[in-house]
């Protein structure tokens, strides 16, 4: 039993960097165990991950492309979390957000590109927020737990989109359930194109300017949460609803606001996938990015900087992971879903597992140094 430390003496970097790092290492260790049980060499897998994600330029491009998606879904979860809400519906909100992007692009074919892009981004946010609206309202005014309702809306989104893609907006000249591609002029420039303008020859990767958009959005979220009245009120409601009422802040309004913003952020994933990479809507294009966003947010402690770093980490896992699945027949992409689960476990539910020991260690080391 470790003696409790005076919390004020714990430096911020111990609480916010060391402890998450230790949790991450624990999670990776357990993941390594899983890889071992699956019959492969964890150390070998680790090397492949690092090589695959950073070892060559195109791989790095893929890493950042994945990170872009995770930044959006991570921010989405984090914003809701600041109001103490668990938005597990990022998957569905991203899906519907993508629909918004496509519809704007499709119906505005031929319009000036800047208008199309702005409206498409707005469309993604609007559609994403709309998909979070009902769970938001139900939580605020009926007390229905947002976890279940958002998960249900994930399933409903899936059903809806399959219906639309099979029956309504399908590209009838093709067999598969997907839409027609958007006009080429509407496509977001990819990094290899931009590199080409500077005379650099770069292999293919899906990395496009949405990455830059995601960084801008991160700044925007930071500003919103810590520099605006809305962020202030959402955080107050999330930390202490009683006190918020005392201060004249409405819990219901802020719950809805937080969820709508959260949905809008998740919706922006559609911008990356549709304007940036695929240029058409396919079945299940969110492909689990919504769920990964949860792990990213928890690891990044719900702060845009942490989310950015965690997004890169998970981008590495995804890209490096596909390298691993390529080279190691026994490992499939699902192993990396399991890794995410372990990370959520250690960074979220068990985040205080070794915190007392770590804090005690550092505080006594610092005391020694002072003495």
């Amino acid at each position, binding site marked *: 039993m470790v003696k409790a430390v005076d919390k004020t003496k714990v430096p911020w970097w111990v609480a916010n960097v060391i402890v998450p790092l230790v949790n991450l290492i624990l999670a990776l260790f357990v993941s390594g165990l899983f890889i071992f049980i699956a*019959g492969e060499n964890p150390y070998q897998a680790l090397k492949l991950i690092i090589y695959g994600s950073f070892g060559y330029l195109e791989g790095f491009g893929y890493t950042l492309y994945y990170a872009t998606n995770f930044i959006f879904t991570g921010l989405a979860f984090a914003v809701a979390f600041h109001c103490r809400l668990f938005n597990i519906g990022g998957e569905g909100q991203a899906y519907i957000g993508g629909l918004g992007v496509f519809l704007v692009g499709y119906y505005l074919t031929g319009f000036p590109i800047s208008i199309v892009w702005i409206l498409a981004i707005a469309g993604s946010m609007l559609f994403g927020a709309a998909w979070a609206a*009902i769970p938001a309202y139900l939580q605020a005014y*009926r007390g229905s737990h947002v976890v279940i309702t958002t*998960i249900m809306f994930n399933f409903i989104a899936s059903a809806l989109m399959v219906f639309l893609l099979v029956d309504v907006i399908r590209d009838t000249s093709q067999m598969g359930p997907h839409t027609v591609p958007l006009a080429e002029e509407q496509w977001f420039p990819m990094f290899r194109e931009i590199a080409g303008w500077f005379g650099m020859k770069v292999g293919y990767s899906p990395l496009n300017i949405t990455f830059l958009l995601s960084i801008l959005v991160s700044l925007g979220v930071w500003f919103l949460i810590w520099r605006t009245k809305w962020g202030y009120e959402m955080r107050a409601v999330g930390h202490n609803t009683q006190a918020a009422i005392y201060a004249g802040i409405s819990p219901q309004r802020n719950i809805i606001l937080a969820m709508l913003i959260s949905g809008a952020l998740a919706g922006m994933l559609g911008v990356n996938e549709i304007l940036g990479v695929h240029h058409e809507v396919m079945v299940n294009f969110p492909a689990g990015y919504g769920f990964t966003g949860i792990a990213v947010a928890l690891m990044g402690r719900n702060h845009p900087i942490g989310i950015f770093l965690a997004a890169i980490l998970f981008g590495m896992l995804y890209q490096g992971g596909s390298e691993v699945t390529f080279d190691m027949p026994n490992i499939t992409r*699902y192993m990396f879903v399991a890794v995410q*689960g372990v990370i*959520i*476990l250690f960074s979220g539910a068990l985040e205080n597992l070794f915190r007392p020991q770590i804090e005690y260690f550092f505080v006594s080391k610092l005391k020694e140094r002072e003495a």
Partner: protein
Amino acid sequence: MEAADILSLLSATLRISTPLVFAAMAGLFAERSGVIDFGLEGKMLAAAFVAASGAAVFGSEWYGLILAIISCVALSMLHGFASVTHKGDQVVSCVAINILMIGLTTALAAAWFGQQGLTPTLTDDRRFFEITLPFVKQLSVIPVLGPIYSEVISGHYIFVYIAYIIVPCVYWIVFKTSFGLRIRAVGENPNAVDTAGINVNLMRYKALAVNGILVAFAGAYLSTAINANFFREMSAGRGYLALAALIFGKWKPKTALIACLLFGFTDALQIRLQGVPLPLVGVIPVQFIQALPYVLTVVLLAGFVGKAIAPRAIGQPYIKEH
């Protein structure tokens, strides 16, 4: 609709509701004791994988079931460790377990059996089989009751019968034993239990153990009874539906059962409605019908069908106050 259709619909309802019933009863124990259990989905999936793998490897579906029970109890204990002992966030713990299981089950299935996440198809001798109740032939001549007996009640897997017997058992345990009394007390007012000299956290662990056992049946049923193997993400949201049924049933066994049957009926109906033109509306797109259980869940949770009051102390780790 003909009589035969109705009978087949009813029979399907029973069959489809079964995993929901097990999971809902599992959730009942956990939640009544004050621990949130969104993790039914992950545990069900784990049980499905372990049961199918166990049956394939050890040659008997019963081994599979036992292994599934052990796995689910382990997961429930993990959830308890994070939530009860470490007082962590219960929702996060559940989300973690769900995602972990979605990944790990398919990953290990692919690694060990090499078929893209399918476990080996179970031969009939390693799988549960449908049971024909006695005297089916003779009784089927009785009008109305006969066909109900032979078509609806007879011919199910043993899990189905267990499920419907379990419900009154659960009712009896929760409301007619001291164990049940204490579990309910812990979920409503842990202070009252503490001052009666009972260990609050231990009670919650016990409830979670029962939770693990029950949900294992749900998963094993999916992969060793109505299907002959495990395939990825085969629980398809049933864990959440069961939870919704539980909430709609106000955390009581009988009403939760009715909610499960409702979900089962909806699902059974949607299979039969696919492509069938209905009066006025014509053919409803299949996806809409498939989404029906999920929409129904949201409607139920919106509380338009009565307000559901959760056990008072749910979701809060027990900390003595002063």
